């Protein structure tokens, strides 16, 4: 199953809409609540990053029998130094983002902690793509 969500740049009142919708789907699919939490926290952090830093993007969420794969693709400034961006506490967030309770340089690290696999590709001036994979335990 594949679900696609558009993410608007700068619209903090809608940040989290995609994560909320996908969470409802995962609940309906009877995914373990602890796994759901890891998936939606990762998705939500990524969604907030797109709202905060990019010029818009989308989340493509695929549910397979043994894993959930999320692609977060944005058009935006890109990340010049991914290793630096992964460091806890490193942030380029604006004052507005910080007012919303984010921008402390924890987002990518938090995604990494919740994902089984995190791949980041970024090109400066073009955009960033995150692939987040969370394994689902075998049924029964």
């Amino acid at each position, binding site marked *: 199953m594949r679900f696609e969500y558009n993410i608007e740049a700068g619209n*903090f*009142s809608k*940040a*989290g809409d995609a*994560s*909320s919708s996908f*969470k409802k789907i995962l609940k309906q699919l009877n995914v373990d*609540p602890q796994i759901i*939490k890891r998936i*939606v*926290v990762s998705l*939500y*952090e990524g969604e*907030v990053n797109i709202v905060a830093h990019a010029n818009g993007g989308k989340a493509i969420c695929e549910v397979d029998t043994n894993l959930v794969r999320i692609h977060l693709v944005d058009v935006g400034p890109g990340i010049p130094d991914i290793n630096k961006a992964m460091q806890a506490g490193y942030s380029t967030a604006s004052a507005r983002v910080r*007012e*919303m*309770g*984010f921008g*402390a340089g*924890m*987002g990518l690290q*938090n995604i990494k*902690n919740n994902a089984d696999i995190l791949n980041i590709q970024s090109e400066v001036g073009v955009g960033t793509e995150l692939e987040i994979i969370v394994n689902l335990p075998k049924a029964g």
Partner: protein
Amino acid sequence: MKLSDVVSILNAEVICGQTRLEREVHAVFASDLMSDVLTIDSEKLLLVTGLVNIQTIRTSEMSDIKNIVLVRNKKASPEMIELAEENRMVIIQCSYSMFRACGLLFRHGVEPVY
């Protein structure tokens, strides 16, 4: 501790979830930083925060946090209350500072997360 006890201890006002005050809370996490809140993995948690915007509720939704105390007389917006109600949350508002609210709850036996 029941949420009704939290309301009493903090001399607070319930603005969402009046019928859910029998719910138990075992631990408190206090933060204005939502990325910090997203790292918490604890059941029956009470979030104490001075951050009042829609992301407070969204973050709680993603973290499976159902109980929120807003400190320093911060007021939840109608949009926040609507989203909280949709997620069967309880929002409590109090005039105390975060330090005072946490101190009182700790003194009455609510555990810290760490």
